[in-house]
């Protein structure tokens, strides 16, 4: 069989990811709900891989949730993003790494817009100068933070202390990978593997010893839907999307879910709690949920980081079943303590979902 054509097509879905010197911009959702993941990302890049990652304290939200909530006009979002570019330029960097998938999608959308409509770029340059007296260069390289972890997945594997393998059976853990919609659905050529065969998380899972599950609703949205979650009256949409995915993945008995978008792990975690409390239905083993992880958390676990340093205690679905399968040691008595070991209480138990 001639495979040159297929190889040629596949080349369109590879992407260049800068080797070093990253300008990091944080995620609104990640900072609020999974702060340990951003901490882990920087620790892995700086301490394990010896990379230079710079964060300018004056960077802000890209307005992404406001933009996709349709309260912030496109001109405003483009100009706020241009200000992030200006901070990057002023700081002497040219490789932009957003922590957020919504931001990554917005940066990509804006760069594509400027490519097709150069007058929009000129307009935004004027807006930015008028508003802030700043000027900017377009990033030489734009990669989502998960792209960067993907790039160094083999180095992480080599340094790793643990594999995504069940120590009792010797078999790979069965992993659901969930890609944030705005990673590649809008601009498939900007994501590793495109929208149909995104490889960014699969590559990590396979190199770290796990096995990815292919299930019917693999590419369905987690259900954030921006206004569909943010307004209480609309949340049926959000939980219905997650529910559809859980029902679809359940027969394959996944050990865990890995995600690359800040919002998705929160929804896939919290909606399992809500579905359990509303309908008595649970999707994990022994009345528990399917543990949901960020890719930074999984990388941290592979590298042997303490689960409570990674922030697994702020998940609603308990992660301990996965830690036990991999053989990762943890001290339950320290799970909910403060940094100095002080007692800050602990969450109540849900009524139905076992934790």
């Amino acid at each position, binding site marked *: 069989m001639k495979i040159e054509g297929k190889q040629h097509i596949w080349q369109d879905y590879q992407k260049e990811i800068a080797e070093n010197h990253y300008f990091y911009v*944080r995620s*609104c959702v990640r*900072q*609020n709900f999974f*702060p*340990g993941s*951003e901490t882990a990302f920087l620790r892995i890049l700086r301490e394990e891989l010896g990379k230079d990652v710079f*964060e300018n*304290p*004056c960077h*802000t*939200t890209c*307005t992404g*949730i*406001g933009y996709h*909530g*349709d*309260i*912030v*006009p*496109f001109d*405003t979002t483009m*100009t706020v993003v241009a200000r992030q570019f200006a901070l990057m330029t002023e700081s002497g960097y040219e490789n932009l790494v957003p922590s957020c998938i919504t931001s990554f999608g917005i940066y990509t959308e804006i760069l594509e*817009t400027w490519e*097709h409509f150069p007058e929009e770029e000129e307009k935004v340059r004027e*807006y930015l100068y*008028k*508003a*802030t007296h700043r000027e900017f260069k377009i990033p030489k390289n734009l990669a989502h933070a998960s792209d960067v972890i993907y790039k160094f997945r083999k180095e992480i594997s080599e340094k790793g202390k643990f594999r995504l393998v069940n120590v009792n059976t010797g078999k790979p853990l069965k992993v659901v990978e969930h890609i944030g*919609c*705005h990673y590649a*659905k*809008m601009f498939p050529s900007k994501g590793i593997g495109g*929208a149909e065969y995104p490889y960014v998380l699969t590559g990590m899972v396979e190199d770290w010893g796990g096995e990815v599950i292919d299930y019917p609703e693999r590419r369905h949205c987690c*259900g*954030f*839907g*921006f206004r*569909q979650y*943010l*307004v*209480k*009256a609309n949340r*049926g949409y959000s939980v*219905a999307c997650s529910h*559809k995915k859980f029902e679809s993945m359940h027969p394959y008995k996944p050990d865990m879910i890995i995600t690359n978008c800040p919002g998705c792990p929160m929804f896939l975690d*919290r909606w399992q*709690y*809500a579905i359990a409390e509303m309908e008595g239905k649970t999707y994990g083993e022994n009345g528990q949920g399917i543990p949901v992880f960020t890719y930074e958390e999984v990388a941290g676990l592979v590298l042997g980081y303490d689960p*409570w340093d990674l922030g697994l205690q702020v*998940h609603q679905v308990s992660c301990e079943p996965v830690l036990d399968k991999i053989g990762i040691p943890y001290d339950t008595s320290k799970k*909910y*303590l*403060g*940094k100095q070991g*002080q007692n800050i*209480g*602990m*969450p109540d138990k*849900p009524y139905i979902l076992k934790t």
Partner: protein
Amino acid sequence: MGVLYDKLAKDVRFREGINSCINCGTCTAICAAAEFYNYDPRIIADTVQSRDESKIEALLKSETIWYCGECMSCKTRCPRGNAPGLIIMALRSLSQEEGYFVESEKGRQQLALKRTVGEWILKYGYCLYAENILPEMHPEQGPVWEWESKHLPEIFERLGGNYKGDGPGILRKIPQETLDELKSIFDVTGGTVRYEKIENFSKEKAKELGLQFDEGIDNEYVKHIYTVNNHSHTKE
């Protein structure tokens, strides 16, 4: 061409979002919103490309344009490279510019978004800010978020954050000069005007509905639009 269509066509997202729709329905087949709501993105594309002013005006006043979740799955699949999700974004912008958004239950929710995410952007520099994500507004966040909400400084310290601190880091205090720059960008680019339009049209609507209207989220109108659901939106 009509006035409304001309305004839509000025939005680059609209120009990117529709070239020539062949009405194949692939977008509807893949659409997460179409599965949940009485929603059909194929019809949205068909309506706007008809350039019929009265139909476009009806769309701008309808519940329909507020059903999309902007996941952009439609963009991936359209055989003609259209993106109903982008058309929706242009329609929603125009609906707010013209004040039509207050004519639908779902459209009126824009004020709730402005009063939360919209104001947090300018006040904190983040779209979301932990101390404002109240457990009573978010019961689905579960007991773990209830616990976190009571101990935010300790939990952010434990997980490497710089909560309300100076310098870089997680949920740091964004410097006032930076917040001033954000406000200036909003003033120059139409963001402030958009917010004012959402406020003004909503205030008029609240008066019409006889609901108390005040600043913040603790007033009759905002509580109403945040929670009311007449259950006519979904398939079942």
